[in-house]
C-alpha cells in the first residue's frame, strides 16, 4: 500500500479516529490505527472493542492495500510536520514508512489482518437529525449519566425513537433529564441505551455548522455517520428504569426564577455547601427565594433572588451541584420550578419550553 495525502487532512483523520484507541490495552493491536487505501480514498479506523471510529480522508492512492500503525506515535509525528503532502507506505515486514520532504519515519506496524473488523450495522431503525439538535440534546442530558459502573444501564442515555421524534433520557437515580428533539426523517421505532462515552465522542465529531447526522440502530449496535466520519458503538443491554413513572404529574407550588442570577447565587452557595454534601436549602418568603448553606468547618452563606411564586411558601434542600448542572445547560432567561413537598421530586424546565424536563430529587432537610 502507498498513499499520498495532505498533512492537514491526514492529521485530522488520525486524530478523530484515534479517539477510539484505548490508551491502556492488553491487546497491542487496539493501540493501532488501521489504514485502508481504496481507489480514491483512505479509511482510518480504530476501536477499543466498545466503540469504533472510522474516518475517510481524500488521498492519492498509489497502491491499494492496508496497514496498521501505532496511533500515538503517528499522531505525534504528524503534529510536528510542516503543511505539505505526506506519503505513507508499508513493506512486507509491516514496517510503515511515513515521509514528508526530507523527514522519513519508519514505524513498526502489525499485520492488518490482526485488526478487529468493525461490525457491520444491520440497521432496523434509522433517522436523520440536525447537527445542532443532536449536539444540544446530548449536552442537556449527558451530565446526569451515572458514573456508577455497577449499574451499567444508567451509564448510558436512553434513546427513544418514535413517530413523533427522538427522546433522550438520562438518570443517575438522583435526577432525571428528558429531552425531546425533532428529527429530519425517521424509519421505525426503538428504545436503545447508548453508552455515555459514545454520546460524548459523537459531540466532538459533529461540526458546529449546519448539516445532519445519520443514525442507524441495530439490535446491538448504533452507528452515527456525520460527514466523512462514522462512529459505531455497542448498545447497553437491559431495561431502562420506568422514567415516566417518576416525572411528577402535578404540583402545588411553582417558582419562576431568573436563570443567570439564580446560577450566580447557587455558585456562591456551593462554596460552602460542598463541605456539607453540597446541601443547599431553598426557601421562599413571598417574592424572595432565599438560598442558604451551612458547614461546620467553613461557615454560612446566604443569597436572595427575586422570583415569581405561585402557591404557598416552600422550604426544600437540594444538592447544589445538581442545580448548577442543569442551570448551565438551560438557555432561556428564566426557569420554572415546580414543587409539591420537601421530599417530593421537583421539576425544572426552561420557561416557555416544554421539550426539556429535569426532575430533581431533594435532599432530606436534616
Amino acid at each position, binding site marked *: 500500500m502507498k498513499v499520498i495525502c495532505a498533512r492537514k487532512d491526514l492529521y485530522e483523520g488520525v486524530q478523530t479516529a484515534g479517539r477510539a484507541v484505548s490508551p491502556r490495552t492488553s491487546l497491542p493491536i487496539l493501540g493501532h490505527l488501521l489504514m485502508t487505501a481504496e481507489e480514491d480514498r483512505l479509511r482510518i479506523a480504530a476501536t477499543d472493542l466498545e466503540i469504533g471510529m472510522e474516518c475517510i480522508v481524500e488521498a492519492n492512492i498509489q497502491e491499494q492495500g492496508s496497514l496498521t500503525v501505532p496511533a500515538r506515535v503517528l499522531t505525534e509525528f504528524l503534529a510536528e510536520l510542516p503543511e505539505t503532502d505526506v506519503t505513507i507506505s508499508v513493506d512486507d515486514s509491516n514496517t510503515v514508512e511515513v515521509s514528508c520532504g526530507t523527514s522519513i519515519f519508519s514505524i513498526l506496524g502489525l499485520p492488518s489482518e490482526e485488526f478487529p473488523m468493525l461490525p457491520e450495522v444491520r440497521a432496523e431503525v434509522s433517522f436523520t437529525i440536525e447537527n445542532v439538535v443532536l449536539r444540544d440534546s446530548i449536552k442537556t442530558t449527558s451530565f446526569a449519566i451515572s458514573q456508577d459502573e*455497577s449499574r451499567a444501564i444508567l451509564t448510558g442515555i436512553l434513546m427513544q425513537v418514535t413517530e413523533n421524534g427522538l427522546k433522550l433520557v438520562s438518570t443517575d437515580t*438522583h435526577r432525571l433529564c428528558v429531552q425531546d428533539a425533532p428529527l429530519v426523517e425517521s424509519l421505525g421505532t426503538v428504545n436503545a441505551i447508548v453508552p455515555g462515552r459514545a454520546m460524548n465522542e459523537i459531540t466532538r465529531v459533529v461540526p458546529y455548522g449546519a448539516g445532519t447526522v445519520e443514525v442507524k440502530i441495530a439490535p446491538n449496535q448504533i452507528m452515527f455517520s456525520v460527514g466523512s466520519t462514522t462512529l459505531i458503538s455497542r448498545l447497553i443491554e437491559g431495561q431502562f428504569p420506568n422514567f415516566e413513572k417518576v416525572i411528577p404529574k402535578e404540583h402545588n407550588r411553582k417558582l419562576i426564577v431568573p436563570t443567570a442570577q439564580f446560577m450566580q447565587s447557587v455558585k456562591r452557595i456551593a462554596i460552602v455547601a460542598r463541605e456539607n*454534601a453540597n*446541601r443547599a436549602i431553598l426557601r421562599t418568603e413571598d417574592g424572595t427565594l432565599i438560598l442558604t448553606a451551612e458547614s461546620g468547618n467553613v461557615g454560612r452563606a446566604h443569597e436572595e433572588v427575586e422570583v415569581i411564586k405561585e402557591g404557598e411558601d416552600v422550604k426544600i434542600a437540594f444538592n447544589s451541584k445538581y442545580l448548577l448542572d442543569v442551570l448551565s445547560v438551560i438557555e432561556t432567561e428564566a426557569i420554572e420550578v415546580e414543587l409539591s413537598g420537601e421530599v417530593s*421530586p421537583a421539576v425544572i424546565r426552561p420557561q416557555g419550553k416544554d421539550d426539556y424536563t429535569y426532575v430533581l*430529587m431533594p*435532599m432530606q432537610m436534616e
Partner: protein
Amino acid sequence: MRGAIAMNQDRKILLVDMNSFFASVEQLCNPCLQGKPVVVGGPVGTRSVVSAASYEARPFGVKSGMPMMEALARCPELIIVHGSMRKYVDVSRRVFKICGDYTDLMEIYSIDECFMDVTPTMDRFGGAWSLAREVKRRIFEELGLRCSVGIGPNKVLAKLAAGMQKPDGLTEIRPEEVRCVLEDMPVQKLHGIGEKTAARLRQMGIATAGTLGRASRARLKREFGVLGDALHDMGNGIYETPVVPYHDKADVKSVGHSHTLSQNTRDWNVLSCHLLRLSEMVGRRLREKDLSGRTVALVVRYSDMHTFSRRRTICERLDDGYAIYKVALSILREQYGDKRAIRLLGVCVSNLAKDSRQLNLFADERDRKLLDTMDSINDKYGEFTIKRASLVKTERCDTAVGFVA
C-alpha cells in the same frame, strides 16, 4: 538520682467508676431488688455469665464474668435480672453529662467509667478533691447511684486509686505517695498490663510495680521492644497519655456486632436468624450515626474456636439491616462448606461514609418509611420492640457485644 522521675506534678486526673453499674441500675429501677443479691446476665443453663453483681451478692463470692450456674451455686437466693443495654446506656449518658459539667477533657473509657482531666478547671471548684466530691454528690442525688473516684497525676494512677476503695470510694494518690503505693503493687494491677505481659514480667522476676520501676530500661526494651520504655515509666508511676475527649476521637471506621450462640449449632435456620438479628442491630447503629457502608464482613467462630472472617464490598451503600443480612448470608453460604457447628457469629460494616441524605428518584420509599417508623418505635420503646416476624423466635440478644472501632 537514678531514673529521675519526670512526673508532671500538677496534673490531676480523675477516674469515675460506677459501682456495680448494671446491677445498681436494676436495683434503682426496681426497688424490690434493693438490698438483695442481684446479678445481671442471661438465663441459667445457657452459656451466659454474670455481667454485673450487686454489692449484696459479692460477699458470696459472686463476681462479674462468672458462669451463671456457679454464681447460683454460691448464692442460691441470687436474683437474676436480664439486662437491658438501652437502660444502661441511658443512665451512662446521664452520668457522663454530669462529669462533663466539670471539664471538657473527659474520656469515656467504658459504659461505666470515664477519665476526667481536671487540671485546667479544678481551681474553680476548690481543687480536685472537692471537685470529685461534688461529682459524687451530684451522681448520687440526681441518679441515686454510687461511684468510686480515683485521683492521680495520670490515668494509670487514677485508675489504681479508684480501685482502692469500693464501693463509694474517693481516693487520691499524690505524687509524693506514688513510690510507696507502687512498691508492693502487683504489676497486673497497673492499667494497661494484662495477664500475658504480667506473666512475662514475672518470668523476668518482676512481680511488683516497684521492681518494674527499678528494672533497667535496656532490659525491658530487650524483652518488650518499644513497650519496654512505657513499662519502665509505668513502674515509676509515669504515664503521660492524655485524656482524649470523645469528640476528638477519630471518626468511626466500622460498626459491628457479634454474638455467642447459647448452643453451638449447624442449623441453617438458627444461624440465618441470628445473622439477621445482628445485621438489623448493625443497620440500626449505622442509621443512628447517619452512616452507610459498602463493605460487609462476616465473622464465624466454630465450636473448636477456629475463627474466620470474610468481607465483601458492594457498589451500593448499605444502612438497612436486611440488605446487610443478604450480603452476610451470601458470604456464610459460600464459606460454610464443612458444616462444623458454629459458636459465634459477627457482622461488621465498614467503608463508611456520612449519609448525604440525597433522596432517590426510583427508590421504593415505602421501605425507607418502614425503616424510619420502626426506628422511631424502637427508639421509644426499646430495641426490637418491633421487628421482622422471622426474629420473633430468636433468643434474646441483649448480651451481644457491640463494638465501634
